[in-house]
């Protein structure tokens, strides 16, 4: 194509093109607006509480929290977890740049506290007592690490109200000596029953480690290499985690369980690559999401923790599983038990 001779002719072509392209863009934007863009964030129905013990999860079709069996009447959450008297919901706020809202609920899904952090929702955990919460977002835009992968993990202590927005500067000991690096990334924090000791993954220099942290002393040390997304068992003796077993980017991980007493590990019967922080449904069973066979989202599966048995499909389209125990203290409107 040779440009038309005169500036006037070229300008006319340009103006026409701008009008056509602008009109087309505007038309599509209006169409998308009419169609109603992405999913909206909704609150839980009044009838939906955590007082009913059972398996709670995120329903992929609606993006809301559900209980089996039952309708997804919970709040809209990208990640969900609950323990003790508290539930934690991570939701992606609309628009750019990516922001995550971490919402703390009580058992009746009353909002107790809301924290907004940058990044995309990734992991959420609540300590067994419900007093200490932690979450991880996948941060974009500050990919100073070579891989362009960066996480930001926060800890919220409800006893003091103290919030650590990013734990990446916690003094870290690797192999017995103090460690410094620009590329440390933490994710998948979860707390033990004492609300102080925690486990997490730290990644640095292309490797991942299991770290044991101390909230009160504000320190962390590595225990073992190649452990991601640790999940402490209810009895506090074992850690379920994903172990990198292959360089194949399509299927890098397997679901393993580590015995904390002797640091011996064994694989579970799940043969697919698991990219999730598994949840203990009871002392012997793990729940986790696997990518759906077809299309978007994932399905919820379970497998025995001791390496026996076979995986079982729990909920098609489910993710973020959590087994909610009966309330430790009765709801406020119930009469107090005699002491």
């Amino acid at each position, binding site marked *: 194509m040779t440009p038309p001779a005169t500036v006037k002719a070229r300008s006319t072509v340009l103006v026409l093109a701008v009008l056509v*392209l602008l009109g087309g863009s505007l038309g599509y934007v209006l169409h998308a607006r009419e169609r109603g863009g992405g999913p909206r964030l909704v609150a839980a129905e009044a009838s939906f509480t955590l007082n009913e013990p059972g398996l709670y999860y995120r329903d992929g079709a609606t993006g809301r929290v559900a209980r089996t069996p039952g309708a997804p009447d919970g709040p809209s959450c990208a990640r969900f977890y609950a323990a003790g008297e508290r539930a934690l919901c991570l939701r992606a706020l609309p628009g750019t740049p990516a922001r995550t809202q971490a919402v703390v609920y009580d058992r009746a899904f009353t909002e107790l506290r809301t924290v907004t952090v940058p990044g995309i929702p990734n992991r959420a955990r609540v300590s067994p007592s419900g007093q200490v919460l932690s979450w991880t977002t996948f941060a974009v835009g500050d990919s100073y690490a070579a891989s362009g992968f960066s996480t930001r993990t926060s800890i919220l202590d409800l006893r003091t109200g103290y919030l650590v927005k990013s734990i990446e500067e916690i003094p870290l000991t690797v192999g017995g000596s103090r460690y410094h690096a*620009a590329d440390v990334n933490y994710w998948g924090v979860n707390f033990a029953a004492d609300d102080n000791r925690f486990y997490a993954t730290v990644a640095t220099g292309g490797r991942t480690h299991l770290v044991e942290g101390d909230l009160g002393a504000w320190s962390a040390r590595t225990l073992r290499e190649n452990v991601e997304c640790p999940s402490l068992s209810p009895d506090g003796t074992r850690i379920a985690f994903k172990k990198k077993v292959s360089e194949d980017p399509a299927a890098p991980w397997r679901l393993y369980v580590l015995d904390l007493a002797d640091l011996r590990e064994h694989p579970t019967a799940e043969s697919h690559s698991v990219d999730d922080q598994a949840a203990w449904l009871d002392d012997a069973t793990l729940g986790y999401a696997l990518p759906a066979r077809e299309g978007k989202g994932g399905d919820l599966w379970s497998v025995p923790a001791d390496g026996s048995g076979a995986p079982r499909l729990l909920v098609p389209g489910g993710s973020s599983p959590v087994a909610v125990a009966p309330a430790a203290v009765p709801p406020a409107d119930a009469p107090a038990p005699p002491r």
Partner: protein
Amino acid sequence: MMYLATTGRRPDAPPRPAGVGRRVPGTVVALGAVSLVTDVSSEMVTAVLPLYLVLGLGLSPLQFGFLDGLFNGATALVRLLGGRLADRGGGRHRTVAGAGYLLSALSRLGLLLAGGAAGGIAAALAADRLGKGVRTAPRDALITLSAPPEALGRAFGVHRAMDTTGALLGPLVAFVVLWATADAYDAVFVVSFATGLLGVLVLLLFVPAGAAPIRTAPIRTAPARPVPARTPMPVAAAPKPARPKHRPLRDPVFRRVTAAAALLGAATVGDSFLYLLLQRGLDLSPMLFPLLPLGAAACYLLLAVPAGRLADRTGRRTPFLLGHGALLAAYLTLLAPLGRATAVVVLVLLGVFYAATDGVLMALAGPVLPAEGRAGGLAVLQTGQALARLVGAAGFGVAWTWWGPRPALLAAALALAAALAAAWRILPGRNTP
């Protein structure tokens, strides 16, 4: 287009030799407009892509990282290829650059049509990277061929200022589209596609197909004065038939420019490290973190044209070295006790660094190369600098791990000072006023 009206008319501007327009050539402004529009198009996609892939499609961060990092290394090679292709057959710059712009624009349609298929998305991202790699060197070569050598600094300043404007506007447009459509990512891709097409169209309509024939001869009066002074250039004879293969690194003057740029590049730690040091030192809210690169880009935008004019007046060597001096000053500022003002000072120094080095290096190297080997030569220079910077950033990461941030930064400052001293000796044009 505004530069046509506002630049080059200052009454105190030095008198220009006859025959050289005071205005920035229309082709340069057109190329700037193409870059502006294209950057709006590509930056709006960059702003939403992670959200789309991870939230919209449910990809894991690892898969995202894999897709994102894919072909990043190949871009350097593609750039060399783009330069070569543009030179072959003499002056196919517009065609090659246009193909690159078109490929990137079409890649938005690929994102749209891929739906959730990872393979389709990977292919679309690859096409975008390919387009980006191919077009850079021919475009910069076109700028050097379209502006008089003695006004190249300003020409590149105008181009880079427009380019940066687009990069700043892109995320804003994405924000507006997402706001208007309640997070319909496909609408962002459609608008980006339309914007990208507009860029291609501006290129076809307002950038002439053949390079201006007046300045096709290499500027080399004498080895000691390879950088053009402000003296009028004698109009060169008709260009010789294109040599089939020009090997830019055989040329001692160009080799010295490339060596200096690579040496300085290897002593550059990477902006993200500086932002990280700022954030940690000031305990900056993570919400404010994205504003740091924005601040530096805004300074770059404001200073690109003045720095280019200065380069034309003093010779490009001086601003290029001074710009790296500004980077050194930024390192030293970060080593001093940090305060609120530190952030501002560091961001301004980074802006000065980019304004005084990025386009200025092209203006410095362009006239050294013969017209028929210009795109290929600039591609070699850009690739060499980019690879050296990668090495520098990786080395700084290792130093940080071994010694901690402050000693690492001190080492980087020493390395940059040494590289500056070496570049001062290596870089041609020391005798130029």
